[in-house]
C-alpha cells in the first residue's frame, strides 16, 4: 500500500491514460462492462486527486519526480543543479485545482454514461473523455513548462475531437475546427515562450526558471507569449470567439469539463504571473491588464448572452462573463498586493475571492450545463423558443437548474454569492467603479437566467412535451452531487475558504516557498 501512496501523483496521470487506451478493448465485452470500467477509472483517478490534495493540504507541497526511487533525488548531484527529470510540483494552489477537476470529472462521466446510452460511437467517446481528464490533471499537476505544453495539447486535441464528435450536419465539426486551430496556435505561441526561457536559463522546470529569472527583454517577450496563449485558452475577451461555438456544440457533459480545462489554463496564467515571474514583473501594470481583460470579458460576455436563443450558447457566453470575475479578482489581488497605500489584506481578499470563484464556477456551471444536457436528451432541442412548460414533468431538473441559476447570479445562500461578495468588497476598496460594473453584470446575469427559467420550465404543458419524462437516475445523481456542493459551499463559505482557498492564495503569493520546495531551500 505504501508504494501506492508514495506514487499517487504519478497514478493521477497513469490511471486515466491507461484506462483510456484499454477502453476500446473492453468495449468488445459489451456496453455494461465498458460503462463500469469507465466509471471505475474516473472514480479511482478522482479519489487519487482528492487524496493527493488532502495530503498536500496536510503536509505541504509534494514534489514528485518521475523515475527516481528516493524522494531526495530530485536534483541529481552530477547534473550541475538542474533538475533533468519530469517533476510534478503540487502545492496548495494545484491541490485546489485538483479538487475541482476530481469532482467535476467524476460527475460528467457518470452523466455521460447515461446520456450516451442511445447513441453510437461510445468507444471513441469514452476514450477521449478519459484522455481529456488525464490532460487536465497533467496541466494542473506538472511543474515543468514543456510538460505543461504536452498536457495542454493532449487536453485540447481530446477536447476538440469531443466538440466535433456529434458532427451535427457539419456544424459541430466547424466548432471543433475552430477550437483545434486556436488551441494549436496558442500552444505554438506557448512553445516559443518555453524555448526563449530554456535558451537563457537552461531549464524547463518552473521553480528553477523562477529562481534564475532576470527579466531580460527576451523574458518579457516570453511573458507576453505565455499571457496571450493562456488568455486565448481560458476564453477571455477579445480571444473568446471559440468559447460559445465549442461550448454550445459539444455534448453537455463535455462542456462541463471544457469549463474545467479552460480554468486549468487560467490557473497556468496565474502561475506564470505570480510564480514564474514572481516579484519581477511590474505587478501594477500586469494587474491592470488582467483587470481590463476581466472587465471586458464580464461585460461583453453578459451582453452577448442576453439575446441568445440557444440555451447552451447562452450559458457559454455566461461562462465568458464569469471568467471575467475570476480575472478581476486575481488582477485586483495582484495590483493591490504591490500597492503601498492599500493594506495587504485587500489584495489577499480579492485573490481569495477570485480563486474561490474558480471553484464555485466550475461547480455551478457544470450543474447548469448538465441540466441543459438533460433538456437536450429528453426534448431533443436547445432552442428556447420551442421549449416550455417542462417544470410539470421534470421537477428535479427544474430544482437543479434553479439552484445553478441563482448561484451564477450571485443570490444568497448559494456559492456564487459567497465568492462574488468577496470580490465586491475588496474591489470596492481598490476602485469603486470596478465593483459597480461587477454588480451590474451580476444583475444582467440574473435577468438573463430568469428569462431562460421562464421559457423552459414555466407556463402550460406544451403538446409536444406532454409525456416528457424526468432525467434517468445516473444523470440525477451527477447533478445532485454538484447541487449539494453548490448549497453547502454557499451556507458554509468561511469553512471552505479557510480550508482550501486561503492556503491556495497564500501559496500563489509565496513564490519563494514554491522555489525552495523544489530546490530544497536553495
Amino acid at each position, binding site marked *: 500500500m505504501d508504494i501506492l501512496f508514495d506514487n499517487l501523483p504519478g497514478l493521477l496521470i497513469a490511471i486515466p491514460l491507461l484506462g483510456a487506451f484499454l477502453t476500446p478493448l473492453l468495449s468488445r465485452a459489451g456496453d455494461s462492462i465498458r460503462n463500469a470500467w469507465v466509471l471505475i477509472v474516473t472514480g479511482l483517478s478522482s479519489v487519487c486527486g482528492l487524496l493527493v490534495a488532502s495530503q498536500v493540504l496536510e503536509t505541504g507541497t509534494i514534489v514528485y519526480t518521475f523515475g527516481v526511487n528516493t524522494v531526495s533525488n530530485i536534483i541529481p548531484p552530477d547534473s550541475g543543479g538542474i533538475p*533533468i527529470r519530469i517533476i510534478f510540483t503540487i502545492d496548495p494552489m494545484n491541490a485546489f485545482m485538483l479538487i475541482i477537476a476530481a469532482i467535476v470529472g467524476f460527475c460528467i462521466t457518470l452523466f455521460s454514461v447515461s446520456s450516451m446510452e442511445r447513441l453510437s460511437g461510445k468507444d471513441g467517446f469514452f476514450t477521449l473523455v478519459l484522455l481529456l481528464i488525464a490532460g487536465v490533471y497533467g496541466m494542473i499537476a506538472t511543474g515543468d513548462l*514543456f510538460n505543461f*505544453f*504536452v498536457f495542454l*495539447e493532449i487536453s485540447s*486535441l481530446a477536447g*476538440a*475531437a469531443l466538440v*466535433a464528435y456529434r*458532427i451535427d*450536419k*457539419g*456544424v459541430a*465539426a*466547424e*466548432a*471543433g*475546427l*475552430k477550437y*483545434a*486551430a486556436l488551441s*494549436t*496556435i496558442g*500552444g*505554438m505561441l506557448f*512553445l*516559443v515562450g518555453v*524555448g526563449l526561457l*530554456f*535558451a537563457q536559463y537552461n531549464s*524547463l522546470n518552473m521553480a528553477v526558471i523562477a529562481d534564475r529569472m532576470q527579466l531580460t527583454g527576451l523574458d518579457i517577450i516570453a511573458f507576453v507569449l505565455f499571457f496571450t496563449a493562456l488568455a486565448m485558452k481560458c476564453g477571455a475577451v477579445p480571444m473568446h470567439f471559440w468559447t*460559445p*461555438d465549442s461550448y*454550445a*456544440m459539444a455534448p453537455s457533459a463535455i462542456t462541463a469539463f471544457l469549463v474545467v480545462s479552460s480554468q486549468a489554463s487560467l490557473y497556468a496564467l496565474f502561475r506564470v504571473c505570480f510564480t514564474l515571474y514572481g516579484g519581477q514583473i511590474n505587478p501594477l501594470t500586469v494587474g491592470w491588464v488582467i483587470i481590463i481583460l476581466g472587465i471586458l470579458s464580464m461585460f461583453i460576455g453578459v451582453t452577448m448572452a442576453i*439575446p*441568445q436563443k440557444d440555451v447552451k450558447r447562452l450559458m457559454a457566453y455566461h461562462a465568458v462573463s464569469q471568467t471575467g470575475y475570476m480575472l478581476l479578482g486575481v488582477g485586483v489581488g495582484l495590483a493591490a498586493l504591490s500597492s503601498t497605500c492599500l493594506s495587504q489584506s485587500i489584495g489577499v481578499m480579492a485573490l481569495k475571492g477570485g480563486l474561490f470563484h474558480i471553484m464555485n464556477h466550475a461547480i455551478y456551471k457544470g450543474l447548469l450545463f448538465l441540466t441543459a444536457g438533460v433538456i437536450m436528451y429528453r426534448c431533443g432541442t436547445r432552442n428556447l423558443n420551442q421549449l416550455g412548460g417542462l417544470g410539470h414533468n421534470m421537477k428535479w431538473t427544474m430544482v437543479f437548474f434553479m439552484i445553478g441559476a441563482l448561484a451564477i447570479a450571485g443570490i444568497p445562500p448559494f456559492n456564487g454569492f459567497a465568492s462574488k461578495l468577496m470580490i465586491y468588497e475588496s474591489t470596492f476598496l481598490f476602485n469603486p467603479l470596478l465593483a459597480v460594473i461587477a454588480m451590474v453584470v451580476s444583475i444582467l446575469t440574473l435577468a438573463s437566467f430568469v428569462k431562460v427559467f421562464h421559457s423552459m420550465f414555466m407556463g402550460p404543458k406544451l403538446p409536444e412535451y406532454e409525456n416528457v419524462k424526468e432525467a434517468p437516475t445516473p444523470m440525477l445523481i451527477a447533478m445532485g452531487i454538484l447541487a449539494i456542493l453548490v448549497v453547502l459551499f454557499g451556507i458554509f463559505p468561511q469553512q471552505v475558504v479557510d480550508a482550501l482557498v486561503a492556503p491556495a492564495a497564500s501559496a500563489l503569493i509565496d513564490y519563494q516557498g514554491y522555489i525552495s520546495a523544489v530546490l530544497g531551500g536553495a
Partner: protein
Amino acid sequence: MIDNLPFLVVAITILLGLYTILFRKDLIKMIMGISLLESGVNLFLIALGYRWDSIAPIFTGAPSLAMVMPTVQALTLTSIVIGVATLALLLSMVMVIYRYYRTTDVREVTKLQG
C-alpha cells in the same frame, strides 16, 4: 551573423505561417499556415540546441569533445509528434466540413455566428 542565420529563417517561417493563417480564405491553406508555424517553432528549438564544435551525446567510441545536452532535440521530437496528430485532426475536420458544406471557403463556413 552566420550564427544568427537559423533564427532569421525561423522568424521568416513563423511570420509566413501567421500571414497565411490570418489572410488566406481557404481552410486548407490556413491549416498549411498552422503547419508552417509548427515547423518554424520546431526549427527554433533545434537551432537553440546547436553548439559549434560539439558532438552528440553518444558515448561509444566518442572523441573527447564537449557533448551537447539533447533536451531540445527530445522536445522537438515530441513537438513533431504532437504536430502530426494536430494536423491529422484538423484536416479530418475540414474533410467533414467539406462533405456537408461543399466548400472550404471560410466566408461560407459560417453557420455558427452571433
